């Protein structure tokens, strides 16, 4: 049986915002949600090799070979014109990486790392790869000090988690909205599975962080915040509030107001007052 490989939108060797310490981050291509507020919308779709992006690539880094898109990173000028051209919010620059390739990258950087985070897109759409990667990290003596975290939207079902959790140190879970209809409007999906995942992960002691994106007029409403307090109390996990920013978003969300420091701090204060703090905030709102 072939070793699973991952479809990787991007690999970062230095990230300080994807879990504790410095973490290598793999952004996996493809997502189960289609969030209006996504600031990496080009990670949502999976490339179908349609070739529409080819004319947009001035330096010729993208070509069609045997009916498949081939990407030459040495020619790429990082103009990202292909991402704008893609009609399905995909990324023709995504590349396949095998587990040994990722291990090599980790071994090279091991002295600088506290761990690895798989993000996306939605990392759990590639569960075989993630499980094989994390298992290989745990089995490699020079890497066993690294923590393995998943950044997830929670859409994965219990069988998927059962495969991943034995080799996963923690999951940072996004809750986009507590009201099911609002969740569907924001993400295109129901939140029943997300809430089930949150409870499953909390029970397993693997809910490293519960993250909540504040979108003015939508997720900062009274009913949402009250429901968030209830859920946070039930789960007992560390909380992080994120603030909606227009940067990178497409479509209608480009016209949404950005979350203000006052709004974010007021919600944080409310969570604190409910005994759920300390709540992590965007660093620009804490000073």
């Amino acid at each position, binding site marked *: 049986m072939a070793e699973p490989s991952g479809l990787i939108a991007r690999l970062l*060797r230095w990230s300080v*915002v994807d879990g504790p310490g410095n973490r290598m981050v793999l952004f996996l291509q493809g997502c189960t949600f289609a969030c209006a507020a996504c600031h*990496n919308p080009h990670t949502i779709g999976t490339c179908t090799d349609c070739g529409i992006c080819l004319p947009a690539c001035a330096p010729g880094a993208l070509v069609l070979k045997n009916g498949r898109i081939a990407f030459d990173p040495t020619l790429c000028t990082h103009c990202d014109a292909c991402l704008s051209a893609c009609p399905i919010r995909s990324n023709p620059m995504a590349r396949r990486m095998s587990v040994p390739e990722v291990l090599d990258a980790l071994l090279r950087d091991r002295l600088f790392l506290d761990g690895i985070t798989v993000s996306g897109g939605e990392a759990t759409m590639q569960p075989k790869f993630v499980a094989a990667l994390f298992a290989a990290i745990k089995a490699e003596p020079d890497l066993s000090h690294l923590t393995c975290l998943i950044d997830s939207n929670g859409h994965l079902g219990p069988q998927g988690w059962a495969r991943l959790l034995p080799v996963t140190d923690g999951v940072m879970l996004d809750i986009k909205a507590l009201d099911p209809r609002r969740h569907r409007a924001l993400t295109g999906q129901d939140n029943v599975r997300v809430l089930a995942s949150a409870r499953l992960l909390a029970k397993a002691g693997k809910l490293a962080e519960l993250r909540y994106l504040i979108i003015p007029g939508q997720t900062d409403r009274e009913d949402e915040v009250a429901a968030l307090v209830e859920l946070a109390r039930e789960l007992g996990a560390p909380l992080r509030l994120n603030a909606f920013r227009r940067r990178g978003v497409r479509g209608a969300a480009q016209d949404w107001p950005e979350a203000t420091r006052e709004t974010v701090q007021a919600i944080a204060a409310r969570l604190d007052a409910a005994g759920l703090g300390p709540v992590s905030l965007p660093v620009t709102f804490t000073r």
Partner: protein
Amino acid sequence: MSDNPFARIIRNPNLSPAQKSHALAVAAENSLPPPSLDDETRAAQDARVICDMFEGNAPYKPRYVLPDYSVLMRQGSDWLELPAPRTLDEALNVLMIAFHHVPSVTGMPVYVGQIDDLLLPFCDGVSDAELVSKLRFFWRYLDRVLPDAFLHANIGPADNRVARAVLAVDAELKQIAPNLTFRYDPGISGDAILRFCTANIIACSKPHIANHPLHRAAFDGVGYGIVSCYNALPLGGGASTLVRLNLLEVARRSADVADLLDRGLPHYVELTARLIEARVTALRASGFFQSFLVTEGWIDEARFAAMFGIFAMAEAVNHLQDSAGRKGGYGHDEGANALGLAITERLASLIAARPLAHVWRGRAMLHAQAGLSTDSGLTPGIRIPYGTEPDPVTHVQALVAQHAHFPSGVSEILTLDETVRANPEAVFRLAKGALAAGLREFTANVGDNDLVRVTGYMVKLSDIARHREGGMDRTNTTALGAEAALMTDILARRPRVVAGELQARSDG
């Protein structure tokens, strides 16, 4: 007579009387002829291929002096009529007096000592609160009376009360002076004090963290100190002179890589050595080494090094890459980085093969020189050009192999996005990893700190803004920093994108 250089200094409204006095002394010294040189060396200096760092035409003091202040602590000073101190107050008082008698190229001391080793013997019976309070006054004195960011204090490698008090006071006061180095040894220091240091870096871009095992191995049992812009020099000695070689100019005068390695570098290393010899000879003739600093044993002439500085490695490598039609820039491409390493290795072997009289161990010490305020378009030392640095992990790994060859100092300034404030553990891991990988010095700026490193010394961004508007500034180095900011792209040093988000660049 505004054309008269002395009159121009006297009428400069931005200088204090003391700063004018220093500038007048420099101008007077430079009215004398420089040390005599052969024609070839003189021509290379006139063409700015080699440079004496504007140390002055008639050297009468070494560039850097690192007194072994422990001599003073043990025996006091006959010359200064000071008995050996017995209490912490007396020790601090004796040091404050001593600093005024320690020259350097700037006219102010560049080294105020291994503070924890010096003060720990006097701290029995002194509470932590008293210690912090006394050090606070000491630190304030240094910044206000000796306001020069080249002035450097050292602590470590042991985790001790004085080192901790120094770090606490330094983060609290956020002063330009003194600059501060913690000498880190993974076998001695422990993670707790390293975390203290990295938290301070987030607060005020200090301390600078030196790789103690690497430095210790490059010196001897008496030890070493880090001074000025991360120069590692023998304790109880210093550097007679620092002469530097512009690697871009050597590359321009070479046909290709092979010609650079086989002819260009040997030729210009020889000329640089001749300039060093001329300056060392002139310094010795000045009578400096008859000073009480020598007779009382604070310094020893035999412990004065000659620093062989290089800079513009990035431009040299990129020039050679372009000439050969090779893609791949310095700091980003493995081939370009390997070329940088080959140049450094060649320099190190040439310097090791060139004897020099009257310098420490009979050879110059290779140094990655951190820049002058007038270096427009040229990158200090072996650094990656400002604004083009990769992420810090890639950055360190691109250059670390070269660090083994710079015994008298090499530094990269890693610029970290302010998001790191919420995650100090990342700075700790980066520092620990970089030092374990063999980085000789770990130095970082955190985005939006007012206090930042310019080429190696500290300035406050708010002071530079005031200086540009024509205000007077009480520190010597702010004027240099303002000049550096205008002449070079130093403040364009880009905070690296550390946010783990994939930003579609089409959003503008």
